[in-house]
C-alpha cells in the first residue's frame, strides 16, 4: 500500500502547482550578430593576400551572407575590438553584450606549410556564453571564398535549424548586344556573384539552363545547328550531349530530384507534350498526350508528383499530376495566367510566375492550390528558381526600359536583393549546395 501511494505521488507530483506562462508573441527583428575580422597568429603572405587581409575579407563575406538573408543584422565592427588568436577560443563576451550582439562568429586564418590555408570557424551564443559549433576548413589559397561560404552555412544552419545555401552556384543566361541581334551565353558564378565565368561562346542561342541537384551537370536548350533541342553539359569535364532524337523541338528541361531523369516538352503540330528521359538508358517515356501545350514540368522533392503548366483548360494554368502522368489536377485559380512552376526542395510550396493585369510577378502556392501569395510587385518578374534550402527564390526582372537583371527574394518577402552580373542576365537557376 505504501508503495502504491509512493508511485502515485511520483507520477502525479510534478503536474500541479507550477506557474506556467504562455509566451505567444515575440519580435521579428533581425538577430544582431558580431563578425569581427578573423585572427591570424602570424601574418603570412599567400597568393590570395596576407593571412591578415584574408581574415578581414572572410569576415566581410560571412557578414554579407548572413545579413543578406534578412534574418541577421551585423553589429558594427567598430563597437568591439577584433579578437586576437587567444580570444578566438576565449571570447570577451561582456564586450559583445555591450555591443548588443546575440551571437558571435569568430575564427582564424592560418597558412599551412604545404601552401594550403586552414580557416577555423567558431560560433558562440553571447548570452549563454556557450560555443554552439566549430569547424575548420582547409582550402587552396584560390578557394578561400568557399571556406567563408562554408562557415556562413555552418552559422546559418546552427542558428536557424535550416540548411544553408551560401556554398552554392548559379547558372544563367548572360545577354549582350542589340535587341535585334542578341547574344546569349550560358554563365556560371557563386551565389554572391563571385567567380563568374562563361560556359558557352554565344554562337548559338541558349535558353533555360537548369542545374542537376546532385552533380556538376546542367541541362539547357540550344539552337545549335538550327535544331532547337535539349542538351546536357557536364561542367567538370566540359562534355556536351544532345538529349533524345526528336524531329521537332524539345525544350523546358528539368532534372528529377535524384538527377537520373530529365523532364521536358516536345512539340508536335502546334502542341507540346511532356516526356521523361532516363539519362542512363536514354529511354524516353511520354507522360502527357493532350491537344494543348503542356510544359515547364518540375518534380516534387519525393519524386512522386509533377507540377507543370498547360493551356488545356483554355488559359495557361498550373496542374499537378502523378509521376507516371496520371491524375492531372488544376491547382492555380484566381485571375490571370500562371506559368513556370517549380517545386520547392522543401516540398511545402510551388513557386511560379503570376501573369495578371499586364504584370509578371513571382508567387508561391501550396501544392494543393491553397495559400497563394505574391512575393514581388514589379513590371516583369519571371522564371523563379529555389535556393537549395527552399528559403529564397531567384528570378529575373525586366525593367520597362528593357534592362534585365537577376534578383532574389526570401519567403517572407523582406529580403529583396539584386545579384550582381557583369552583363544583362535572365533565366537563372540555383544549383545544389557544393560538397
Amino acid at each position, binding site marked *: 500500500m505504501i508503495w502504491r501511494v509512493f508511485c502515485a505521488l511520483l507520477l502525479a507530483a510534478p503536474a500541479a502547482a507550477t506557474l*506556467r506562462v504562455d509566451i505567444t508573441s515575440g519580435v521579428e527583428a533581425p538577430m544582431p550578430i558580431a563578425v569581427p575580422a578573423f585572427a591570424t597568429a602570424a601574418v603570412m603572405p599567400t597568393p590570395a593576400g596576407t593571412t591578415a587581409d584574408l581574415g578581414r575579407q572572410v569576415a566581410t563575406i560571412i557578414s554579407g551572407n548572413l545579413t543578406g538573408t534578412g534574418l541577421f543584422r551585423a553589429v558594427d565592427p567598430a563597437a568591439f575590438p577584433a579578437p586576437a588568436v587567444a580570444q578566438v*577560443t576565449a571570447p570577451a563576451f561582456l564586450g559583445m553584450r555591450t555591443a548588443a550582439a546575440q551571437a558571435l562568429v569568430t*575564427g582564424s586564418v592560418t597558412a599551412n606549410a604545404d601552401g594550403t590555408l586552414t580557416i577555423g570557424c567558431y560560433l558562440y551564443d553571447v548570452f549563454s556564453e556557450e560555443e554552439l559549433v566549430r569547424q*575548420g576548413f582547409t582550402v587552396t589559397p584560390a578557394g578561400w571564398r568557399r571556406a567563408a561560404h562554408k562557415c556562413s552555412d555552418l552559422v546559418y544552419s546552427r542558428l536557424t*535549424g535550416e540548411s544553408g545555401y551560401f556554398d552554392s552556384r548559379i547558372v544563367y543566361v548572360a545577354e549582350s548586344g542589340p535587341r535585334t541581334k542578341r547574344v546569349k551565353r550560358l554563365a556560371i558564378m557563386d551565389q554572391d556573384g563571385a567567380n563568374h565565368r562563361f560556359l558557352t561562346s554565344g554562337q548559338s542561342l541558349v535558353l533555360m539552363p537548369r542545374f542537376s541537384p546532385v552533380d556538376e551537370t546542367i541541362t539547357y536548350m540550344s539552337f545549335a545547328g538550327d535544331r532547337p533541342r535539349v542538351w546536357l553539359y557536364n561542367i567538370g569535364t566540359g562534355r556536351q550531349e544532345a538529349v533524345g532524337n526528336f524531329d521537332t523541338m524539345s525544350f523546358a528541361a528539368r532534372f528529377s530530384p535524384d538527377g537520373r531523369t530529365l523532364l521536358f516538352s516536345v512539340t508536335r503540330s502546334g502542341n507540346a507534350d511532356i516526356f521523361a528521359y532516363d539519362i542512363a538508358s536514354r529511354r524516353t517515356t511520354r507522360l502527357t498526350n493532350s491537344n494543348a501545350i503542356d510544359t515547364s514540368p518540375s518534380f516534387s522533392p519525393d519524386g512522386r508528383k509533377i507540377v507543370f503548366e498547360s493551356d488545356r483548360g483554355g488559359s495557361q494554368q498550373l496542374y499537378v499530376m502523378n509521376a507516371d502522368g496520371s491524375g492531372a489536377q488544376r491547382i492555380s485559380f484566381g485571375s490571370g495566367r500562371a506559368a513556370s512552376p517549380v517545386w520547392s526542395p522543401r516540398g511545402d510550396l510551388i513557386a511560379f510566375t503570376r501573369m495578371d493585369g499586364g504584370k509578371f510577378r513571382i508567387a508561391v502556392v501550396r501544392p494543393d492550390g491553397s495559400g497563394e501569395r505574391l512575393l514581388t510587385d514589379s513590371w516583369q518578374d519571371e522564371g523563379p528558381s529555389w535556393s537549395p534550402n527552399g528559403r529564397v527564390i531567384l528570378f529575373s526582372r525586366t525593367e520597362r526600359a528593357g534592362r534585365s537583371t537577376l534578383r532574389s527574394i526570401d519567403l517572407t518577402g523582406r529580403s529583396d536583393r539584386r545579384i550582381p552580373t557583369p552583363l544583362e542576365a535572365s533565366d537563372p537557376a540555383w544549383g545544389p549546395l557544393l560538397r
Partner: protein
Amino acid sequence: MSERGALAVAASLHLLLLGALSFSLAQSLPERQAEVDSTPIEFVEIGDEPTVTEPPKPSMQAAPRDPGLPPPSDFLAEAPPEVDKPLPAPVVRADDTAVQDAIAEEVVAPPPPRRQPRETKRDSFDAGAMASLIDKSLPDAPVKPRDTSAFAKSIEAALPKGAKVSPRAMATLEQAIRSQIAPCWNPPIGGADVQAMTAILRIRLNRDGTVAVAPEFVSQTGATPGNQAYARAFVETARRAVLRCAPLTLPDDMFSYWREFELNFDPRLMT
C-alpha cells in the same frame, strides 16, 4: 508476484526508460559523407589553439585546451584531398527527439472558458503598481495584451490550497513575466515546421530577478525526426530570450511564486 513486487518492478522499469531516453539525447547522428568538388575544400577538426606555421609565444592569455580534442599536429599532417577519399565530415550533434516525440501528444491544455473572477479583499499585492510596471516595459514591443481574467481559473487551479494570493494578482504576475520576455524573443518563424512547434522551459530566478540556473528544457511539441536541427534552434531562441531579458522585475512579495516557473513558448499566433 506480490503487488508490492510488481510495483517495484514497474518503478524500476520507469527509471530505466528515463535513463535510456536521457542517454539517447546525447547520441550523435551518423557522419555525413562529403564528396570532392572542383574547388577542393577539406573539413578539419580545429582545436582550441588555431594551427600556426610557427609556434606562438607562450602567453598567460592562452586558452586551456579541451582534453578530448586532437593536437594541432593532427591536421597539419593532413594530406591534400584525394578524389576518392571520403572527407571527414562535420559531426552534426543533434538532440535525439525520442523524448520530444514521446511528449509530443501532451499538447498544452487549451485555456479555460472565460470567467470573471470575483474581486477579493484578500489581494495582498498592489495590482496597480504591477500595471504601471507593465506599461513601462518596452513600449514598442508588440505584446498582445490579454485579458487577465481569462487566466484566472487556471491560476486558481495552480495555487496551493489556502494560498493568500488572489487569482487576479497571479494573473498580473503572469502578465508581468510575459511583457518582459516577449520583447526579447525572436522565434524562427520562417521555418517550415513552425506552425506546430512549441517549447516549455523551466525558469529558476534569484530574488533580485537574475537567472539562478540556466533555463531548463522541459518539453516540446512539433519535434519530429526530420526537424531536429530546427527543434533545437527553436528551443535556443526561447532560452536566449530569458537570458537576454534577465534580470526580470517582479513583485518581491510574490517571490515564492516566481522563484521557479515554466514558460511555454508558442509562436503560432505570429505566423
